[in-house]
């Protein structure tokens, strides 16, 4: 088994774990962490696919970088929303 295959399988596992966390919860904060795990799985797939060539595919790397910033922005927004939702219902 090659390095690429190994990390692709790990990514598949991470995606499943993220899905489980997203649908099981129970806390909103944990669901957001689960979403981040799913994001990490997607980015791992992209980075691993980029590693198939030598040198690694810089185009894919750039896409992952864009994706990372988008993910952190969305997470920040979601966390603020969670904090407000909880303080309203508490």
């Amino acid at each position, binding site marked *: 088994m090659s390095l690429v295959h190994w990390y692709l399988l790990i990514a598949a596992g991470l*995606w499943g774990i993220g899905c489980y966390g*997203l649908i099981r919860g129970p806390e*909103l904060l944990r*669901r*957001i962490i689960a*979403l981040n795990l*799913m*994001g990490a*799985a*997607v980015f791992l*797939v*992209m980075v691993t*696919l980029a590693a198939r060539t030598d040198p690694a595919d810089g*185009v*894919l790397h750039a*896409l992952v970088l*864009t*994706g990372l910033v*988008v993910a952190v*922005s*969305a997470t920040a*927004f*979601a966390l603020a*929303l*969670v904090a*407000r*939702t909880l303080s*309203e219902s508490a």
Partner: protein
Amino acid sequence: MNFALAAVLLPLLAAVLALCWRRQAARLVWLSTLFSLLLALAALWQVVTFGPASMQLGGWQTGLAIRWQLNELSALLLLMTALIHSLVASYSLSQWRDAGLSADFWPLSALLQSALSSLFLSVDLFNWYVTLELLGLAAVALVLLSGKKALQAAMRYLLLSLAASLCYLLGVALLYGHYGWLDVPQLAVAISEEPVDHRLALWLITAGLMLKAALWPLHVWLPAAHAAAPAPVSALLSALVVKGPLFMLYMIWSQLAGPELAVTGSWLFLLTGSMALVVGGWSALRTPYAKVMVAYSTVAQLGYGLLALGLMLHLTDPAFTQALFIFVLAHALAKTSTFLAVGEMQLRLGGKRLSTFRGASQTMPLAMFAVAVAGGSLIGLPPSGGFVAKWQLLLPLWQHSQLWWLLPVILAGTLLSAAYIFRLVVLAFNRAKPVRPDFAPALLPQWLALLPALLVWMLAFASGSLLSWLGG
């Protein structure tokens, strides 16, 4: 292409300026929507006269650059975006002091317009991901303008929307892993040359987009979010935002699915579309709240879009592409009118329930007229735009007897939409609750709510050229 580029950049500039110079935000954004309407008209004119064009952003070769494609379809959708935005902006400007609409509405809606216009022009899978994310965050922020009561709905909308984007992105990563292209037309060529099993990628993309477009059964977030938002925002969300992912679904399935997969996919769209029509219509009929009813009507109406998409894939008949996009245009106009008019009546008469509208034909006849006229198009009464779309859908269906079961489904959907519209209209013709003697709602917002409803009936006169533009 120059005009289309300007139509994307102008709202973007307006949003940035509106954030810097907050006192003039409303006027700036309003002006930008009017100018971008002119620019979108010019772009359509350019396409019709000189033919389609495309632009490689940055001037690099295909594949390396993001590509924009301007053809009749994208020009029409660009025009729809600009038109709805200018109508909603005019309405909001005419009544925002009374409605207590936050000043944050203006930069957010301008960003929304820019993102949506870029989405309709782009044919790049990853660029679509970024615009989708932009669209989703802008939509959630706009829903939040309602304050506390929108928190739960916004929370759910945001989480589902993020999960949907990740599904989409995973699908895109799989496709890139197979073929190494992000440009959709190039990817289509690569797929047809060397078909491999890319089902999972397509299903992931489809699941993400169906969730984003609130297509049945992934619509659960829509009614709460659209009903909780302020009226101009609901109009933008229902009329435009859900159409972005629907357009992407059309592009991806029509270009990237091979003939075999297209038939399998068509069954999914036909079944979910039928369910959307019936279940959405039934829920709209049952709810006691006015805006929830209009929101469920969006769920139901998107069922027609799904049916048209499914039929297009199943029978490969271009008539269904025409039906799909005429439906998109007609629904955008009708839903804008409905949400604005219902919002205006709720604001002046006070109350969220349908019973608020008792006697509205006497207290606010103009707004009620707008609801009835727009409702006519939602039902599909001739000669409205909704009728043209439905006619375009039914006419070729007669010739394909194996899909006869769709006819009763469409009939049921039509009857249900007629039922919920008439439920409102009948209430409005009841004896009015007494209002204060000085009750005199402003007329301008009501006229502005009526305008898109009139436009959707005029769509029928333009249907000849619409059909020829969408025919290719």
